[in-house]
């Protein structure tokens, strides 16, 4: 402490000595020292504050991801429950009804009664098929058994069947499932997008293609109907009625991927880019 006292005393002596040159030099030195300290304190305090904000942001994102994950998982559980109920209960009732109808001897029926019996049997067959179709879509059992590519192909065949739309699936078969949970999300997104395209875009042709490279999966859905631009997608996903688009966005966030809607010269395309990681990583 003595050297500080000595320095201050010396400075005071210089200040009162009338040596202008030294007085100015000391004033400049002190001002620059003060400014330097102020600047350093400013930079460090701001750095600390920014780090805190960054940590909070990471925490918020983690919480948001957890919420999305639990919402997506519970939706999947609910789909499974409905699929099982449809298959095991409604399907069983319909099959039983079919057995009962089949037990009726058609030879005993004549005219209008025979016509009603045949029509009833036909409707029951259609009902059983529909229930099975819905149940399979909801359950994603093909996805679990045969993988993502086969599930997409199967879904496209089932959905496009009976329409005038020409559909092609050009999928990269080098892709192998590393995380089944993620595959369900990818499959649900494609389901939702294809359903939307068929329902709203009125296309003649749909092409679903994929490319798997360096642990990155790129899925491109192209169609020649009236699609969405990325701005339209951004606007629609915040609307109440845009639940499907919101779900797609949530799944993209969950998979830490990107989705981009664009207008091409001959149609529209949706690009989904997903980094593929095994569950441990």
């Amino acid at each position, binding site marked *: 402490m003595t050297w500080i006292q000595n320095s201050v005393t010396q400075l005071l002596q210089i200040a009162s000595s009338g040596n202008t040159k030294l007085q100015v030099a000391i004033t400049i030195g002190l001002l620059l020292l003060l400014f330097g300290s*102020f*600047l350093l304190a400013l930079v460090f305090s701001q750095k600390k504050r920014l780090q805190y904000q960054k940590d909070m942001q990471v925490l918020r994102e983690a919480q948001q991801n957890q919420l999305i994950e639990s919402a997506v998982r519970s939706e999947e559980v609910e789909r499974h429950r409905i699929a099982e109920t449809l298959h095991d209960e409604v399907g069983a009732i319909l099959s039983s009804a079919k057995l009962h109808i089949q037990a009726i001897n058609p030879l005993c029926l004549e005219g209008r009664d025979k016509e009603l019996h045949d029509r009833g049997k036909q409707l029951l067959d259609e009902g059983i098929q529909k229930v099975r179709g819905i149940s399979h879509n909801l359950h994603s059992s093909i996805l679990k058994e045969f993988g993502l590519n086969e599930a997409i192909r199967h879904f496209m065949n089932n959905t496009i069947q009976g329409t005038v739309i020409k559909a092609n699936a050009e999928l990269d078969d080098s892709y192998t499932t590393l995380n089944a949970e993620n595959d369900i999300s990818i499959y649900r997104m494609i389901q939702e997008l294809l359903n939307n395209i068929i329902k709203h875009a009125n296309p003649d042709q749909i092409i679903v293609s994929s490319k798997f490279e360096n642990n990155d999966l790129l899925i491109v859905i192209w169609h020649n109907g009236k699609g969405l631009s990325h701005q339209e997608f951004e606007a629609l996903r915040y609307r109440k009625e845009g639940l499907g688009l919101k779900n797609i966005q949530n799944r993209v966030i969950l998979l830490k991927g990107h989705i981009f809607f664009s207008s091409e010269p001959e149609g529209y395309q949706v690009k989904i880019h997903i980094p593929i990681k095994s569950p441990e990583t």
Partner: protein
Amino acid sequence: MHVYKLLKDWLEVWALIIPISVLLFKPKQPFVHRPIIIYLFLALVFNTAANIIWKTSYLYELPKWLESNNYIYNLHAVVRFYLFAWFFTLIDRKTYPIVKKLIPLLFTLFLIINFIWAEDFFFFDKLSNRLHAVEAGLLLIYSLMFYWSKLQFEHISITKSEGFWVVTGLAIFVLTSFPIYLYYELSLRENIEIAIDLWQVQKVAFLLFCIFIAKAFYDMDSKQRHAIITNS
């Protein structure tokens, strides 16, 4: 020794070449740098003129108005203040808008009062240390307001924020100049050699100021900035 003296004497001129030459490599600068670019070219004209007058006034028989360069330094200070006031307004329009409008008004008021009643703008014997001290003080207030607003509102690191290097260079320059101008008249009365030495210190601060401006120009990545001069 001759080269050193030459460099020392013409420091205020060649220091300005540093940021101007950076502009040749990085011509696309944001709109907020426009006042600084204008300042650099005007300062080059002022300082060259001031140095030529200084070096030739005692060698040749010149008209009365060319015998002293003090009014050029006065003019330089006035131009610098207004251009940097414009720069501080451009760099952040949201914070302290009233104060930023009020400071140039106060400076204008000071100019009118000082040069009508107290001093002569074209006084030949000495430059207006009062004008320079007020200018330095007000620019220092602008600089401190810039730092304060960055501390309060900015969400990116202050060293990466637009204007940091220019403002820091300016702050160092005005902090060094302020006491020099305050003591300038006293040192002239005491010993002219002291005034000359102090002026050399101010020149070094000016060199630092120019280097900081050059750094700001150099750091500018034109691809990432949208408000570039060519588009504005």
